């Protein structure tokens, strides 16, 4: 019996601190959820009452956190094995599995019902589907079954801007679909870059990551292909009602940077990567985070400019 399983079996309900429960919500992932949902809500046409907008973002974040707690409940066995996840509340013996399950289920229900009451049924339905998708489709089914787990599972992380948009408008449009597609296409190269330098973790846990099932060469190929496919999606947003020259410039700059990083990852082999401690892979992983924040930040920037009459492509006619 390992030390981890010993502490887990001794975990008593009621011993956890407030911070341990908060850690179950995956606060770092929540940052991305909150930011993209907020941008989705702010760039949508029409005005939203600030209290309703705040409540919408809060309940989307709580729903995202609830799915994180349920994911930790289901994956507690593999979290105990992987170095990266060993410190999470359940494997660390701070929260019992039953508590995590109850906490996740309660917050899921509260967040969906409250989002529905605060905004509309479309947004609430999308949030419920997101939680279901992340917990059942990704965590329970795909994650341990197929090396394409990251590709399909990435959809769960791509929903927040669409939910934000739906909360403001009550419907889904091409802009919301493209924001979804942007995160959906971004997720695989982002996580595969991580998998390249978190070498042993997934292998030891028996998670069929692409690096484990198809090898590291295939993973490098996949990163390049997905980054190439991501670029037109990122640029296409510039030509919708929420895009404009500012977004196009930011998207072009960061897309070229991401493509350059993916190209360098593709060119290297394992010997080259090991020689510099996977420096390039780590750099691409970090840059991919900046990429997403920059592109969504630029969409927000366009919305602010539009408010002052300088947003979108209308700026060209103003200047002309």
């Amino acid at each position, binding site marked *: 019996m390992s030390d981890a399983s010993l502490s887990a079996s001794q975990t008593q309900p*009621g*011993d*956890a*601190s*407030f*911070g341990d*429960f*908060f850690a179950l919500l995956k606060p770092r992932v929540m940052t991305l959820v909150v930011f993209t949902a907020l941008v989705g809500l702010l760039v949508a046409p029409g005005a939203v*009452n600030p*209290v*309703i907008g*705040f*409540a919408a973002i*809060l309940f989307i974040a709580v729903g995202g956190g609830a799915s994180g707690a349920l994911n930790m409940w289901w994956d507690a066995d593999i979290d105990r094995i992987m170095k990266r996840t060993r410190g999470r509340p359940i494997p660390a013996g701070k929260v019992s599995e039953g508590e995590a399950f109850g906490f996740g289920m309660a917050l899921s229900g509260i967040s969906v019902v409250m989002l529905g*009451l*605060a905004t509309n049924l479309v947004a609430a339905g999308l949030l419920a589907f997101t939680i279901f998708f992340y917990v059942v489709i990704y965590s329970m089914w795909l994650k341990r079954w197929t090396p394409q787990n990251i590709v399909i599972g990435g959809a769960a992380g791509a929903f927040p801007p669409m939910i934000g948009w739906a909360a403001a408008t009550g419907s889904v449009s091409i802009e919301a679909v493209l924001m979804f597609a942007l995160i959906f296409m971004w997720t695989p190269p982002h996580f595969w870059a991580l998998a390249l330098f978190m070498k042993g973790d997934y292998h030891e846990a028996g998670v069929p990551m692409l690096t484990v099932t198809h090898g590291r060469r295939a993973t490098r190929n996949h990163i390049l292909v997905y980054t190439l496919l991501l670029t037109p999606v990122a640029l296409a947003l510039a030509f919708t009602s929420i895009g404009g020259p500012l977004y196009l410039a930011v998207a072009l700059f960061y897309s070229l940077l991401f493509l350059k990083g993916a190209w360098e990852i593709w060119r290297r082999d394992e010997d080259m990567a090991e020689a510099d401690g996977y420096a390039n892979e780590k750099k691409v992983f970090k840059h991919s985070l900046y990429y997403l924040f920059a592109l969504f930040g630029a969409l927000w920037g366009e919305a602010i400019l539009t408010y002052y009459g300088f947003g979108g492509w209308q700026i060209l006619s103003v200047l002309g």
Partner: protein
Amino acid sequence: MSFRKPHELHGRRFGRNLGLGIVLAGSVALIFGLTIAKVSDDSFVVPTQVEGGY
């Protein structure tokens, strides 16, 4: 009254209770704010004013 130093477990429980209290108070404030925002909206109609309402 005891002058013994509280056990670490009691500190953790106090923190959790305090945190839960703040969350509950925040929820009350949020639901009150949402109610005000909803009834202040121009499209809000009192149920008795809706056709067929009672």
